């Protein structure tokens, strides 16, 4: 393989990995606060993409499309938490996880009724041809994905590290009992976690919409994000970002060396490998939680 196609696989993997990182980030945020693996995460991505198309067709300018889609999905995420997770919060995490699986089916079904089975199409956010880097090339839309990942990480850093509400959120992750005795309501933080998780997932969906926007896109993307989250140790934000890129690049090279037909199998293979060899993930710490 020559160096330019090698570069191409890396770049493609990075762009795809940015999306997986965003989706995985949603898993991590929600898992950290609630202990739930939220299988609605993929559907948040789908909703982000579908709503972006809908808002775009209403003639809204791009910045508003992005903001409206992300905020709408954040509100949907918070709403779903309030109506389905909160009433069952005394149940075991396993029960709650099964609730999220049920929710994801419901969300997909509703999306099917609203948007139909045909994939929706919107133009790429910015025109122009591929941009060449070190012998490889990326489409402008792929830069949007990487940009969205960067913005989400930065935004989360500012929120979690620099605001009192963010500190309260982290406090709830580190020590739930200590936090509730400080007057921090774990219930509110759980809702906030779902809103944040939905928002980052939706942002991923929005920037991915020109590539794919279909009612059934959520499941496959959710699985990729889940693999990234598990590989990253489920609790670590830097871990899941790095793991997202690892999964993306792994997938890209798998496509190149084996067959594009195995694209989805590769991330599942990574998942199996992690669960067998290092179940705590690359950055996970047994018994300790980190944000």
């Amino acid at each position, binding site marked *: 393989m020559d160096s330019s196609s090698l570069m191409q696989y890396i770049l493609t993997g990075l762009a795809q990995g940015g999306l997986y990182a965003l989706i995985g980030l949603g898993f991590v945020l929600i898992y950290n606060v609630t202990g739930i693996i939220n299988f609605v995460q993929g559907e948040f991505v789908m909703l982000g993409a579908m709503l972006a198309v809908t808002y775009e067709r209403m003639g809204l300018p791009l910045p508003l499309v992005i903001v409206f889609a992300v905020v709408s999905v954040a509100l949907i995420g918070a709403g779903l938490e309030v109506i389905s997770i909160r009433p069952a919060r005394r149940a075991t995490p396993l029960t709650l996880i099964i609730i999220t699986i049920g929710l994801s089916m419901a969300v997909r079904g509703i999306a099917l009724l609203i948007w139909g089975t045909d994939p929706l199409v919107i133009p790429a956010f910015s025109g122009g041809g591929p941009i060449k880097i070190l012998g490889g090339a990326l489409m402008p839309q792929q830069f949007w994905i990487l940009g969205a990942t960067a913005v989400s990480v930065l935004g989360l850093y500012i929120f979690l590290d620099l605001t*009192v509400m963010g500190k309260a959120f982290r*406090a709830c992750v580190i*020590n739930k009992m*200590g*936090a509730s005795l400080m007057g921090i309501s774990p219930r509110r933080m759980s809702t906030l976690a779902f809103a944040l998780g939905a928002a980052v997932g939706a942002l991923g969906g929005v920037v991915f919409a020109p590539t794919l926007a279909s009612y059934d896109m959520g499941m496959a993307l959710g699985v990729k994000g889940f693999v990234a989250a598990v590989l990253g140790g489920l609790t670590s934000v830097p871990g899941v970002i790095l793991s997202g890129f690892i999964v993306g690049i792994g997938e890209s090279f798998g496509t190149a060396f084996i067959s594009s037909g195995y694209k989805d199998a590769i991330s599942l293979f990574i998942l199996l490998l992690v669960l067998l060899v290092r179940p705590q993930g690359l950055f996970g710490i047994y018994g300790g939680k980190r944000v």
Partner: protein
Amino acid sequence: MLLEVNNLGKSFGGVKALQGVSFSFAQGQIGALIGPNGAGKTTLFNLLTGVFPPSSGEIHFRKRLLNGMSAVQISALGMARTFQNLQLFTNMSVLENVMVGCHGQTKTGLLGAALRLTSRKEEKHIRKTSLEMLDKVGLMDYADSPADTLPFGQKRLLEIARALAMRPEIILLDEPAAGLNPTESRFLVDLIYRIRSEGATVVLVEHDMETVMELADKIVVLDFGEKIAEGTPVEITRNDRVIEAYLGREVQQPA
């Protein structure tokens, strides 16, 4: 009375951890709960702060019935506590721990914070208050250190600073002097007097009798989940049942 406990009981399965305990503490008092290991002191603290609900009896705080309230609601009424086994937010800096204690005073709602509308002024104010609290407990120099790296005694002080940041009406200290060296204990005693002089009521669970006798205005003694005595330090030291609970009964004629 600021805090009134009536006929309080708590069972875990068949084990009666507390039974028929009644007492009260007045505004501005330094109260103490003492008793041998397993007497139910920490259980009592957990009931007061809403960690779990009582099985029977009533708790009134500032004329409000606490039964059925969550820990979050009770803390909002002005009750703060520290823990026997420290419950710090270990991955945060010393200052951040205290800032979390101020969380209840922020006016920004959930949505506002999520949308990044938290007012800078408010953040600044909280930072300033938190630094004052750290200064009060003598941890100013460690503000930016990770809370995990503090020596044990200073972690204790950090927990107190974090509790004070909530601006509580009453502060419950669970064995604040345990594991402190004499200098640190001295500092703690002064600190508790200062907290009281600033208007808060203090209730402590403590094993160190010297500290308790020096500090407390009123002592409640528990043994096997029941109250066996209540009174001033002088009254308590002369109480036969207390002496018996602590030192054991003199061996009688074998039956």
